[in-house]
C-alpha cells in the first residue's frame, strides 16, 4: 500500500508543480524592459466602438515601450465610466460625452478628469443592393424606426420609392450605436419599433441586409466600408440636403446627425503615473496613424489641437 500512497502523493504534487512550471515558463518575456522609457501598467476600458482605436494605440505604444503593460477592455461606455470613477481604470473610452450622473459619481470619488476627442465615428444606413434608395430624410427615418411604427415598405414614406417589403436590421440595445441612433433619429434614447432583427454583432447585421432583398439596417460606418460591395449606402438628409457618409463628411460633422466624436477620458490621479502620461502623449502624437490602423475616421487638425490642450491643462507641469 505504501507504494500506491507514495506514487499518489508524488503524482498530485508533480501535477501541481508541472502546471505551475509551465505557467511560469510563459511569464518570462513580459517584464523585459529596455527600448522606450515607459514601464508599468495602464488599464484602459470602456466603449466597444472605441476599442479598435484603443487596441491599435496600445499596440503601437507597446512596440515603442516594451516595458509598459497596457490592457484594453470593452465593457461599454457606461460600464467603463463606472470603473473609471471608482479608480479601477486609468483611461476610459467613450462613444458619447460623460453623463450628469456619471459626473456626480466621479465628483463623489473626487476624480478630476480630462475629455480628449481621439477619433470620429459615423452610423451608416444601408439597404440591400437590390433595394434602390439614394436618400432618406431624418423625418422619414423616424417614421420608419420610431416606437409603434408599422411602415412595411419604403413606398409608404415616398411614392417614388420601391414597394418591396422591408426586413429591418439594427444593433441590440446594449450597443452605443443603438443609443446614438435612437436618440438622434427618434428623439429619445432607447425609443424604437420592436419588430426588427437585433444583433450585438454588426457582422450579423451586414449579412442580414446583404442576404435579404428587402434588407434595411444601420450600423457603424467601418462595417459598411468593409462590405461596400454587398450593400447600398443611403444618404441622410438632416435638413441641409442629402449627405452620404464618408471620411470627410463624418470628420467635419456635415453628415448630420449620424456622425459623432469618440473620446478617451483620463483622470488626474492616473495622469500622475508617467506611463499613463506617455501613453496619452503617444495617442495625441500618432492619432492619424492609429485611426488609420483601426479603420476609424481620424481627427481634423483643429480637433487634435483641442485634445492636446485639454491634456496639458490636466497634466501636472
Amino acid at each position, binding site marked *: 500500500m505504501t507504494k500506491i*500512497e507514495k506514487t499518489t502523493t508524488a503524482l498530485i504534487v508533480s501535477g501541481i508543480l508541472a502546471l505551475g512550471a509551465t505557467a511560469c515558463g510563459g511569464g518570462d518575456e513580459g517584464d523585459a524592459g529596455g527600448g522606450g522609457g515607459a514601464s508599468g501598467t495602464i488599464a484602459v476600458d470602456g466603449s466597444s466602438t472605441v476599442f479598435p482605436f484603443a*487596441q491599435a494605440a496600445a499596440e503601437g505604444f507597446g512596440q515603442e515601450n516594451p516595458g509598459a503593460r497596457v490592457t484594453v477592455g470593452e465593457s461599454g461606455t457606461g460600464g467603463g465610466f463606472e470603473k473609471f470613477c471608482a479608480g479601477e481604470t486609468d483611461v476610459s473610452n467613450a462613444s458619447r460625452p460623460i453623463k450628469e450622473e456619471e459626473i456626480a459619481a466621479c465628483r463623489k470619488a473626487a476624480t478630476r478628469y480630462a475629455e480628449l476627442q481621439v477619433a470620429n465615428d459615423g452610423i451608416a444606413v444601408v439597404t440591400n443592393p437590390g433595394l434602390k434608395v439614394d436618400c432618406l430624410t431624418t423625418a422619414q427615418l423616424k417614421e420608419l424606426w420610431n416606437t409603434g411604427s408599422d411602415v412595411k415598405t419604403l413606398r409608404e414614406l415616398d411614392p417614388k420609392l420601391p414597394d418591396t417589403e422591408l426586413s429591418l436590421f439594427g444593433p441590440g440595445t446594449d450597443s452605443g450605436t443603438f443609443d446614438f441612433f435612437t436618440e438622434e433619429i427618434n428623439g429619445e434614447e432607447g425609443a424604437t419599433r420592436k419588430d426588427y432583427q437585433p444583433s450585438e454583432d454588426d457582422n450579423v447585421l451586414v449579412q442580414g441586409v446583404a442576404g435579404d432583398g428587402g434588407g434595411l439596417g444601420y450600423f457603424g460606418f467601418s462595417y459598411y466600408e468593409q462590405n461596400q460591395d454587398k450593400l447600398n449606402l443611403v444618404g441622410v438628409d438632416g435638413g441641409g440636403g442629402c449627405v452620404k457618409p464618408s471620411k470627410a463628411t463624418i470628420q467635419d460633422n456635415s453628415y448630420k446627425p449620424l456622425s459623432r466624436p469618440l473620446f478617451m477620458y483620463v483622470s488626474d490621479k492616473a495622469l500622475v503615473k508617467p506611463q499613463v502620461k506617455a501613453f496619452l502623449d503617444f495617442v495625441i502624437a500618432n492619432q492619424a496613424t492609429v485611426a488609420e490602423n483601426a479603420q476609424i475616421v481620424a481627427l481634423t487638425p483643429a480637433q487634435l489641437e483641442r485634445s492636446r490642450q485639454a491634456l496639458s491643462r490636466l497634466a501636472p507641469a
Partner: protein
Amino acid sequence: MSARRAREVGFHGVLLGCLSLSVLLLGLLLYDVVSDGASRLSVDLLNRFPSFDPQRAGLESAFWGTVWLMGTCAAFIVPVGVATAVYLEEYADRERWWNRLIEVNVQNLAAVPSIVYGILGLAFLVRGPLSLGRVVLAGALTLGLLVLPVVIIAAREAIRAVPSSIREGSLALGATQWQTIWRQVLPAAVPGIATGVILALSRAIGETAPLILVGAATFVAFNPSGLDSGFTALPLQIFNWISQPQPEFKVLAAAGIIVLLMLLLTMNAAAIWLRNRYERKW
C-alpha cells in the same frame, strides 16, 4: 416477428438514431471549424500577441493566460474539493440537519449559471473584502468556485466507491481514521477524483461570461507574470475576433477554437491515462 421482438428492435433503432445524430452534429461542427481555421493554424499563432492587423495577430497572451488560470484553478479546487468530499463522506453525520443542508446546497450550486459566479467574483474578490483587483488570482478563484461543486460531487462518488471492507480492515488493524483515509481510501479513489478534476477544468477553460465580469481585458499584449498580473484568456480572444468586421479575423477565431479544443483534448487524454494507470478492481 412478435410484437415484443419488434419493440425490442425499434427501441434499439431509436437509441442508435439519437447517438448518430449527436455524433454527426459534433463531426459537422469540427469539420466546419477545422476547414475554416486550418490555414492560420501554425506555431506563429502561439508566438504573437493580438493586433489590429489580422496578418500579425496571434494568441500568445490568451494562451498563457488560460494556462495560468487553469494551473491556479487546479491548485485551488483539488485540495478544497477533496477535503470537502472527505468530510461529507467520512465524517459528516447525515442525521444532523446542517450536513444535509450542505449536501443539498453543493448539488444546487453545480447548476447555478456561470454569470452569477462572475458577479460573486466581482463583488467579493475583485472589489469588496478581498479587493484583489482585476488579476489572474481573482479570475482563477472565480472559475474555481464555479467548478468546485463538480469536483466535490465526483470526489464523493469516488470515495463512496471504495468498499467499506477496506476501511473496516484498516481500522481493525489499529489504524486511525486519518491513517485509513490517507493510506487506503484516497489512493483507491485517485482515478475518480482525477476524472472529476479534469471534467471541472474542462468546463472552466471554456467560460467567458464570469471572466468578463471579473475584468479580464480583451487586448493584452503581455503574458501573465504572476498571480497579480492582468490577463486575458482564449475564449475572450476568440469572442473578440469573431466580433471584428474584417473577415480575416473569422479565420483567426476558427484557428483559436482549434487551439482551445486541442488544449481540452490534451487535458482529457491526461485524465484517461490517469484513470487507466491507477484503476483497481476489488
